[in-house]
């Protein structure tokens, strides 16, 4: 295990964390009976382990879950904000182009109808009157 461990200490520590063979168990119990220092070490290790083992669940304090949820919500808002600003410049561009188009059409056609503003062709008389209507006109 490590050079700084005696063979007995290594066995003692291993027995605390791993199942040891029957032979090793016997050897350890014989050592414990005769070796006061090892017995003392064993007591110390048991005490350390007993004191360190958590007795009750820990906590990060009240409203920890709420803080996480707020952080997640905030992150979602930040993403929405970024998306909004990423597309905002394109939105402004598109609106600008549309307005310029409307003004140009308005100036070219000098009409205030929606068709004119959107650059749609003004309907010709052939589109207004049907053929039958044309025939019914006085010759």
């Amino acid at each position, binding site marked *: 295990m490590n050079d700084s*461990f005696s063979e007995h*200490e290594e066995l003692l*520590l291993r027995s605390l964390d791993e199942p040891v063979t029957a032979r090793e168990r016997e050897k350890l119990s014989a050592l414990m009976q005769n070796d006061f220092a090892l017995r003392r070490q064993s007591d*110390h290790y048991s005490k350390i382990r007993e004191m*360190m*083992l*958590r007795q009750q669940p820990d906590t990060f304090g009240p409203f920890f*879950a709420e803080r996480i*949820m707020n952080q997640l919500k905030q992150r979602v808002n930040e993403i929405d904000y970024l998306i909004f600003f990423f597309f905002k410049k394109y939105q402004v561009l598109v609106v600008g182009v549309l307005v310029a188009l409307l003004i140009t059409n308005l100036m070219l056609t000098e009409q205030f109808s929606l068709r004119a503003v959107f650059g749609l062709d003004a309907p010709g008389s052939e589109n207004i009157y049907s053929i039958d209507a044309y025939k019914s006109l006085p010759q």
Partner: protein
Amino acid sequence: MGVGCLIIKQFGFHYLMSMKGEPDEVLIEKSRDGDMAAFKMLVVRHEGKVAGVVRSMLGATPEAEDVGQEVFIKFYDSLNKFRGESQVSTYLIRIAINLALNELKRKQKANARYASLESVGGMGDAADTMDLKELLAYEFKQLDADFQAVATLRLIEGYSTEETSSLLGIPLGTTLSRLARAQQKLRLALTKKL
């Protein structure tokens, strides 16, 4: 407006409570579908274990809570990757121990020069005024980050040596050796007191 908020809060509270008995798998499935209350229930359920590991390694510090929050945010981000091959608690402990280890190593590196001064002077008379538990906690903090991780899982959280190895992704022999060395250092400190 006020009454509306109250009704929504009450509804949210009852909805959260209704999930108390749901198994983790169901809560994960709901969280994947965007149910934030289900994820909140997972946080409430597993906070204790994560806090145990993180606070054992970093102490009751603001950094410990930051790491705790990061653990759950990382978990939220990886919900779709979580295949359920391990338990949720195991998965969370794995994230927690990695993040806490990183933070601890960063801290130990930053404090290296102070630590060397401390080791020259030792604890001095401070050890006499500390009780046994405080002394152990102090000595525990002096251990290397990797040793602390093993000791936290095995000695504080009570995981078996196999579970500790698996959580840390290290061979069983390494776990046993680090554990033995950590305990030996703690025992040396204890003998000064006893």
